[in-house]
């Protein structure tokens, strides 16, 4: 091994006086003292890797991730606080920094000194310095004093001397080939670096891998660092995956803080994904998702939900589908993971969703509809529909709702768990930027026990199919899809009684399909007086009694499967924002919880096939 890092830690001191004191102590008492969190910080933690002769290592990470510390340890410019660093051979830090020159020495003397410092034999110093001067086109300055040599030329000479002289290990801290004013000199440097990359062991540190993509040099290994920890160490074959991870790790912080839009992330990784998506293996995806997941857990811990006496969860005012597919399963995970089940909790949602929150914890449920009049609620939803229904920040409406809840519950000190944190976590999945791994990691799915209380509506058909058809990104509004819905409803109503779950209360942006009111075999819930506060509870009870549920993928009919009712989820296109992960999720849940759930890609040509399937399921 040319380079061996074995469980290496490197700590620095925050205060310069304290650093001196501790360093002095360390010289005389090497094992003295323990890590003091307030005064020290780890630049590297438990880093292990090795590099054989001739191998090339790329160390990637955002600023302050420990890249330069690794480089300095390899060049023996610093020592490890803990662990072992073994270096075989002569190392060379490649850079343009002028070291060791004084204004009175000649350029020739400076180069000779630099060469001697780099370990060039005294016999070769003259020959090598002549070659360097020639390549840097500095012949006219050879005997002149340093004070008279142009600054840029000195920088070029320092750089070229560092790459031209022989070493066993070259360490490039920063870009492999830095841009030079002189293009012919840049070409000379490139030629030399090509030779180094062919014959020597090389370590390159970089913030981004983009530069590396532009180079033709082959890299063997990759070390990904984040805040001094190793996120990934291994094969470079996955470099494009790691590049994406790098971007995520660098930007996910500002993304979670609301400073960056998902589109900014998407833009940066999209070219990689477009190029390599087919080659992604599950393992690769897992690595990226793990990086995102790690940042997410950190954000949850920063929200200090464990420390406060009371926890306010919500308010949830987005799509119903997202609520029971992601938000509530996430809360189940959160409450189990952080043992919050006995904590004083207030869940805030709307339209009678409280029943589904019972599976999360034993908290109090407050319905938004109980805090305002129906007119106020409708106006709020209408206003929200003009903005983004998937909140990535807390809106003024929600702030107002929280204030009302705090006043009503007489809560003094509370932590807030707002749905935006989950939207932010899952948005990269929904956008197809990362694998659905975070969804599996941060959710717990269970079957739902149907509501036991007696249904207020008494005139439901004895045997019926619960239906809710609406348009969304994976079943977009248009003549063709309207026609498909019309045929399905017409054909089904010839054979079965249908109960339309729409109650005329618009909770999200999705346009509802309008059924023919003349059809006598359709039972319209909107004809019964249903209050806002009882809406979802009634819908659940209707679903419970149905022989089959059929609806647009991920709307409330999908809940039927969780209650053991056979359910068909319809979609027409595989390009919706959420669909890809939900198809995977659906298959996963079908297997894991034995849910009677069926996804069906519907088109004009296969309606009869769908009807046959429905017949098979009902009978």
């Amino acid at each position: 091994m040319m380079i061996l890092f074995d469980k290496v830690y490197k700590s620095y001191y925050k205060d310069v006086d304290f650093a001196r004191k501790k360093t002095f102590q360390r010289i005389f008492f090497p094992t003295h003292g323990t890590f003091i969190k307030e005064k020290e910080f780890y630049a590297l933690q438990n880093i292990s890797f090795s590099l054989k002769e001739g191998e090339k290592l790329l160390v990637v990470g955002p600023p302050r991730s420990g890249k330069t510390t690794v480089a300095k340890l390899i060049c023996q410019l610093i020592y490890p606080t803990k662990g072992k660093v073994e270096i075989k051979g002569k190392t060379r830090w490649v850079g343009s920094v002028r070291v060791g020159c004084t204004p009175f020495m000649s350029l020739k003397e400076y180069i000779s000194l630099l060469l001697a410092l780099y370990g060039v034999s005294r016999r070769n110093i003259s020959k090598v310095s002549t070659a360097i001067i020639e390549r840097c086109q500095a012949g006219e300055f050879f005997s002149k004093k340093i004070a008279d040599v142009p600054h840029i030329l000195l920088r070029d000479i320092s750089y070229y001397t560092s790459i031209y002289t022989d070493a066993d290990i070259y360490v490039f801290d920063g870009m492999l080939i830095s841009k030079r004013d002189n293009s012919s000199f840049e070409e000379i440097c490139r030629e030399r670096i090509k030779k180094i990359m062919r014959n020597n062991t090389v370590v390159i540190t970089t913030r981004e891998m983009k530069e590396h993509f532009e180079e033709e040099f082959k890299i063997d290994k990759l070390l990904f660092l984040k805040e001094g920890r190793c996120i990934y160490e291994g094969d470079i074959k996955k470099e494009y995956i790691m590049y994406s991870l790098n971007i995520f790790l660098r930007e996910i912080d500002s993304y979670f803080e609301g400073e960056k839009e998902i589109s900014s992330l998407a833009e940066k990784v999209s070219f990689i994904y477009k190029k390599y998506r087919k080659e992604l293996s599950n393992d690769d995806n897992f690595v990226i998702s793990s990086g995102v997941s790690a940042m997410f857990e950190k954000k949850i811990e920063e929200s200090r939900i464990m420390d406060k006496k009371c926890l306010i969860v919500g308010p949830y005012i987005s799509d119903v589908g997202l609520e029971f597919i992601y938000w509530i399963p996430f809360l189940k995970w959160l409450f189990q993971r952080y043992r919050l089940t006995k904590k004083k909790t207030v869940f805030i949602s709307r339209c009678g969703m409280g029943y589904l929150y019972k599976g999360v914890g034993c908290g109090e449920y407050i319905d938004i509809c109980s805090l305002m009049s129906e007119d106020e609620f409708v106006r709020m939803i209408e206003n929200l529909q003009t903005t983004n229904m998937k909140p990535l920040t807390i809106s003024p409406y929600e702030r107002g709702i929280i204030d009302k809840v705090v006043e009503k519950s007489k809560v003094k000190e509370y932590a807030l768990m707002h749905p935006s944190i989950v939207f932010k976590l899952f948005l990269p999945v929904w956008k197809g930027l990362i694998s659905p791994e975070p969804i599996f990691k941060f959710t717990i799915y269970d079957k739902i026990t149907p509501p036991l209380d007696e249904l207020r509506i008494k005139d439901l058909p004895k045997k019926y199919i619960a239906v809710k058809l609406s348009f969304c990104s994976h079943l977009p509004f248009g003549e063709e899809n309207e026609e498909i819905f019309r045929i399905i409803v017409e054909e089904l109503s010839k054979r079965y009684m249908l109960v339309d779950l729409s109650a005329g209360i618009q909770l999200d942006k999705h346009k509802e399909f309008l059924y023919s009111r003349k059809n006598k075999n359709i039972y319209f819930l909107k004809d019964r007086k249903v209050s806002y506060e009882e809406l979802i509870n009634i819908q659940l009870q209707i679903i419970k009694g149905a022989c089959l549920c059929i609806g647009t993928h991920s709307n409330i009919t999908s809940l039927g499967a969780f209650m053991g009712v056979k359910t068909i989820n319809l979609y027409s296109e595989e390009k919706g924002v959420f669909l890809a992960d939900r198809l995977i999720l659906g298959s996963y849940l079908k297997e894991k919880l034995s849910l009677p759930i069926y996804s069906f890609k519907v088109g004009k040509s296969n309606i009869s096939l769908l009807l046959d399937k429905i017949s098979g399921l009902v009978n």
Partner: protein
Amino acid sequence: MPSLYKEEIKSKIDRWLDIINLGYLLFRRDFQYRFRLTYFGYVWAFVRPLLGVVPLIIIGKQFKFAEGASVNYEMFSFIGFILLQIFWDAVVIPQWFIRRIRRIVKNIFFPYEAIIIASLFYILFYLSIYIVEIFIGFFIFKLHFSFKVLLGLFLLFLFIIAGLSIGIAIAPLIFIYLDFRYSLPFFYNILLWLTPVVYASPKKGLLFFINKINPLTYLLNTTRSLFLNADVSIFSYFFAGTVFFVFLFIASLKFYYYAISIAKEQIL
């Protein structure tokens, strides 16, 4: 000798010659800079020891510091002072030097022996001036040379080793605290009076005891006696003092390599 060993020895010699060359280049770089920034240039190197010793000679002669010694007092104290100066140069120069090349130490890993070699070049430069001054003194005071002077010249290197044994241990610590640097003149003054530099060792009393436990006393008295063609009576003590400093030098060398690798992180 098998050719393998030959090769190994040859490469080791080659490595050391490269280190000496590096040490020389570092010395040259510093030397040029140091004297360029003065008006009188190299004259300072010659005048420096004289400026320190002349007042001491005048006072010492007035108060008959070396009444018992049957030698020329001016040369007695001058040689004593020069010997102490050689020792002190070897204590001080490594820490001067290491501080002046701290940016190189911070940015490039190179054989740190070169710093000692560079310091040695400085010490040898001053030593050559001291030797010239001693011979001028011989000429002025019309003292005759004996073959013992050659032996005395050889022993001057022991003073260098003795001084380096302290100097190289202190040098890396300069990166952390400059207190070591600032306190050295104070120790120099103490050493000047605790070692029989400008006085002859008394036969009794506290100073007699202090001189006796000071290993530098034996090195200094013996070497000075050789220069002045006086009797060398306590050679065994001289030998013990030499062994003491040689062992101290080896220990300091080990400490130097270890400490510099840690202390260099504190270079600001």
